[in-house]
């Protein structure tokens, strides 16, 4: 284990964390403002990945693929909001779990009907296929650098949108005290529809960007949903800043756990035990992190309703 390997893994963790942030941002706002638990958020991520993979294959333009993924997913999300989510606002969390689980079932079958059961192979854009020499003896895939750059850019844009614009002010008002915001004349329903569409767009962007480095298949939404939920719980539900910090934390802990824990265990334990224990500990690392944070700060790191 040398410095270059460590640095490489840290960059991987950063990239994964930023993608998690894109997914978690929409989830935490929807949860924070309308108190709505949306399990189907992962399905929007899946939709983004599928659309991007197919459009990229058909048009050979990655930029067009990402754009199409975002637009299509936002349109689907808008429809979903009007038909279902809008009617769930004032319902119990469990009812929301029930309804959005139903949406997951429908979405998985829809994807199967449109694109088939077999996983899609999404290719990296040709221009970014090779590695970049970051430093002496440190090649790094250029596509992963794009991921990091895009993630940081979107995070910055979101920060500006939420903290410096009028609509962002309304979003924050809704998140910190929905009732009071309503009394002050904010049309929280409209703000929410906007936030839901924004969240869907971000999830689709994450899906489109992750497609080339993960497998595009049915069930990918359910797989990414749980880490995203862990992120918003650690960060404090409703807090964008919390989601950002928590996403980077979870990304780094998860990646570092997978890369270093097996190596570290092999140094102190017999190989057969280490081989069993390493992946298990790596898999549970982020949940241990969540349990630890909740023990110390039951409302997450940056509670929005302070």
């Amino acid at each position, binding site marked *: 284990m040398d410095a270059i390997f460590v640095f490489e893994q840290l960059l991987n963790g950063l990239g994964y964390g930023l993608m998690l942030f894109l997914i978690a941002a929409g989830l935490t706002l929807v949860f924070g403002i309308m108190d709505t638990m949306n399990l189907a958020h992962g399905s929007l991520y899946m939709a983004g990945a599928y659309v991007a993979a197919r459009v990229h294959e058909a048009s050979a333009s990655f930029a067009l693929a990402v754009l199409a993924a975002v637009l299509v997913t936002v349109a689907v999300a808008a429809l979903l909001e009007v038909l279902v989510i809008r009617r769930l606002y004032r319902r119990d969390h469990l009812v929301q779990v029930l309804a959005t*689980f139903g949406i997951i079932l429908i979405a998985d079958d829809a994807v199967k009907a449109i694109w088939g059961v077999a996983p899609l192979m999404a290719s990296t854009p040709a221009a970014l296929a090779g590695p970049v020499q970051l430093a002496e003896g440190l090649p790094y895939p250029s596509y992963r650098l794009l991921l990091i750059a895009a993630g940081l850019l979107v995070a910055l844009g979101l920060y500006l949108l939420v903290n410096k614009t009028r609509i962002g002010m309304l979003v924050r008002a809704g998140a910190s005290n929905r009732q009071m915001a309503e009394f002050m004349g904010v049309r929280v329903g409209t703000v929410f529809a906007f936030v839901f569409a924004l969240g869907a767009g971000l999830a689709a962007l994450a899906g489109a960007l992750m497609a080339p480095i993960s497998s595009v298949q049915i069930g990918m939404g359910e797989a990414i949903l749980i880490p995203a939920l862990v992120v918003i719980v650690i960060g404090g539900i409703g807090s964008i800043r919390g989601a950002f910090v928590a996403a980077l934390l979870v990304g780094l802990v998860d990646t570092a756990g997978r890369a270093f824990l097996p190596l570290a265990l092999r140094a102190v334990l017999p190989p057969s035990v280490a081989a069993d224990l390493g992946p298990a500990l790596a898999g549970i690392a982020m949940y241990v992190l969540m349990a630890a944070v909740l023990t110390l700060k*039951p*409302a997450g790191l940056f509670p929005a309703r302070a």
Partner: protein
Amino acid sequence: MNRPASDSSRVAATTGAAAVAEHPHQPFAVRFPGFARRLPWLVLAILALFPLLAPTFGLEYYVGFVRRLLIVAIAASSLNFILGYGGMAALGHAGFIGVGAYTVVALVEAGFSSAWLAWGGALVVAGLSAALIGAVSLRTRGVYFIMITLAFAQMLYYLAVSLRTYGGDDGYGLYTPLEMGVWLDGVHPDVFYWVVLVIAALVFACFSRVAHSRYGHALRGIRDNETRMVALGYPVYRLKLAGFIAAGAVAGLAGGLLASHNAFVSPAMMHWTQSALLLVMVMLGGLGRRWGAPLGVALWLVLEETLKMHTDYWHWPLGVLLLLAVFHAPQGLAALSERREGGR
């Protein structure tokens, strides 16, 4: 088992036939008290005779299906107990099913072959893990409770994936059936079915009894107003923990039975979608209602089985069903027949 039905029959007896005439839409149990009281026994009798009758109607395949349904109903009843009566929205119940199943695997791998030992072990080990997990999780509230139970179930999932001795991701096949003792083995090919039926009936009767005991009322009090129950001097945390442990243990028992039923155990049993499914079935049947869990499980599994026979696309109709249930039958299936009885 049939106590509340007799409650409603008493209501019917005092109000008499005139009330029935005035309210033609009165609940089933009030209009036909005798039948409603006997219905559970009738269902039990049909279920008990099913393996004997099935060959006559060419339904042998469904004996196994009903056995699975009964096992899932055991797990769902335990979730209904803590969620419906105790208000504990645990999204990690499949984790305990997995603990039970892997306990059976561990005992088999260690050379034991007694079914009773394996299932008993499943019950105890799952109960112990529920004690540990509950002790931590029950300190949180609301969404955080949902999330932390989910997190623990995920930890168990990854633990199972990494246990290469027991097959890891690929799962573990139980090639020789467990021994249920000389009195049962070989008496009839479907003896395991009846064993499951008896266990399911006992579990169901126990949970129904406890739900209407002093403890059950305290649990419902906690669900409805925890602060008040604290003020009244109830040891709220301990009461909830006791319920959580009981539910976890029973889910573990169901897991042990499921391991025998499938003759196969894999981490997929404890994937988070399995926990969500269990929750969905209980809610569909009716949260905190006596018949909620078995009704929900029966509806879901029968629909799933039927749809699977006709199409590869069997997920979406179930999804539509969930949306319809949310908007048109939010109290669940069991509530439709007792709508006028005044709540749970």
